[in-house]
């Protein structure tokens, strides 16, 4: 609206101002989502697993037949949607965070080794990366989770073990250039051993892409977790998850729109917020980064 005032401003200020709006938006949404997930037991008006069959399939309160005590309506078993979304956020965000940490640990370690030592180690690790890129990860994850049995731990393990590739690739590329820099040669000349060189001098300088990838991967993991849940291979009921709620809602798309729409909206908002934050981090920390 006040575009006129911007016309003569230097080119640099403009993107920066727009980016910080994105960051504030992303931060706020994520804070609300994260906060309500942490405080779900306190905030949720109902027990998420409590079935009230007399009040099945009630629409959100602003619609006809809606009830004030169920602001976002109830599902096919008369469970409160709002309470379930709040509790579902715990799984989505919690599993996402742990899975990203795990895949970062694997990927960063392998990326560091490949980039720093080069040669055969590098060639081998990069071929393993290619293998993981070639296999449709969702099928692999489904097969593994089904074989081991769907549980919180298995889901996290599988998610971490299939997505580390992203970290390995970006860290390797970064380390390839870092290891040629003077301060690494200097540290080596001072008699530092390879491990210390790697952890004290190379790793800290590769942190920027790691942070950015971790943020963008968190968004991915949230979608990934709900996809597994949606297919029935995520964390098992009665623990509510957003993906599970969506798949419940599938059978009611014609009669009860809120069942599938609202948990999906929660996923989208969270992912959107994390992505905005990731974009902002990248543009602020290192705009040349190709992630």
């Amino acid at each position, binding site marked *: 609206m006040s575009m006129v005032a911007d016309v003569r401003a230097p080119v640099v200020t*403009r993107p920066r101002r727009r980016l910080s709006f994105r960051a504030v938006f992303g931060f706020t949404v994520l804070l609300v989502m994260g906060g309500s997930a942490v405080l779900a037991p306190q905030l949720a008006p109902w027990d998420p697993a409590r079935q009230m069959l007399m009040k099945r399939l009630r629409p959100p309160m602003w619609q006809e037949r809606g009830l004030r005590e169920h602001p976002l309506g109830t599902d096919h078993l008369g469970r409160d949607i709002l309470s379930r979304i709040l509790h579902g956020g715990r799984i989505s965000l919690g599993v996402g965070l742990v899975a990203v940490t795990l895949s970062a640990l694997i990927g960063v370690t392998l990326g560091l080794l490949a980039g720093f030592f080069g040669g055969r180690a590098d060639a081998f690790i990069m*071929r*393993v990366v*290619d*293998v993981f*890129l*070639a*296999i*449709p*990860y*969702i*099928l*692999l994850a*489904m*097969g*593994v989770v*089904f*074989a*081991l049995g769907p549980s919180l731990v298995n889901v996290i393990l599988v998610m971490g073990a299939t997505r580390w590739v992203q970290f390995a690739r970006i860290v390797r590329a970064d380390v390839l250039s870092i290891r040629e820099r003077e301060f690494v040669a200097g540290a080596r000349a001072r008699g530092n051993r390879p491990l210390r060189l790697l952890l004290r001098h190379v790793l800290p300088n590769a942190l920027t892409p790691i942070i950015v990838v971790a943020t963008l991967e968190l*968004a991915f993991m949230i*979608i990934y977790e*709900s*996809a597994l849940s*949606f*297919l*029935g291979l995520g964390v098992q009921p009665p623990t509510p998850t957003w*993906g599970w709620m*969506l*798949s419940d*809602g*599938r059978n009611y*798309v*014609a009669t009860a*729109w809120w069942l*599938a*729409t609202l948990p*999906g909206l929660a*996923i*989208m*908002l969270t*992912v*959107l917020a994390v*992505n*905005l934050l990731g974009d902002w981090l990248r543009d602020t920390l290192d705009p040349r980064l190709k992630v």
Partner: protein
Amino acid sequence: MAPHTPQRSSRPGKAVARLGRLTMVGYVARRLLQSVGVLLGVSVIVFGLVHLTGDPTRLLLPLEAREEDVRQMRTLLGLDDPLYVQYLRFVSRAVRGDFGLSFKHQLPALTLIFQTLPATLQLTAAGLTLALVVAVPAGILAALKRNSLIDAVCSVGVLLGQAMPVYWLGLLLIMVFAVGLGWFPAAGRDGWTSLVLPATALGAFSMARIARMARSGMLEVLAQDYVRTARAAGIRTFVVTYKYALKNAAIPLVTIIGLEFGILLGGAVITETIFAWPGVGRLAVDAIFSRDYPLVQAIVAVLATTFVVINLVIDLVYTYLDPRIVYVRSAK
């Protein structure tokens, strides 16, 4: 990268041409070998999938199988042999296209896959085409009219497209266009109308990514010296944009199409489940839930091979289009 470019331009003529051909052959050979290596790695994982729980007979047989059936199955499958013997046997059969019989359908796994693969390829091709047709012009337009209303609309679209899970978008599309408006069927594969909704759901994520890349690629090219020079030389904006900038912005797009194809194949698993599309993805989900492990193995192997082959072809086409890449890579 840098040291080789001047060398190439300072010694033009036959020697370089011969060097180029040689490295080209070397590069193709190496790239082929690499692909074989990747496929071997895939085979290890596919083989390992069944051995995850230690004793695959439990996975391979129905839950209610009797103890003597289990024992019989063990000997039948040769599970008492050392693991590497079993693996070699698995690979030598797989190379010949023999993944065993599907338990559920009692047909060779590969036959089942080839029956359903066309549907999946049709869906992914439609999704990718849709993504490209919308995203490339949109991204270029957004870059040309930077900070305009079009640019803003595009970036909102990109953000939403990247944040919407395919299963949710699929359900929303069914709700609005199948149940609500009744324009397209909600499920099945019957004529082109049934392709519209699944292809849209599947292509949306790629559309967002491609639009984003097209925009940033175009912006990068527009800032290059040769574009500025061309403009300064008085060449019309239209020609500069389409003849100079667009061609160069297109190159990185070609490479991501290969990776995007892999993402689409993965997304097809979920899309096919939602829209009851009779493709490999649905076959796979079905196979996993009915413990049909030979079929699961075969599907993972075939999809991974498809991905590897497509990326190999794209890489080779790419080096043909831009030979500098061969010199640079093989010089390492």
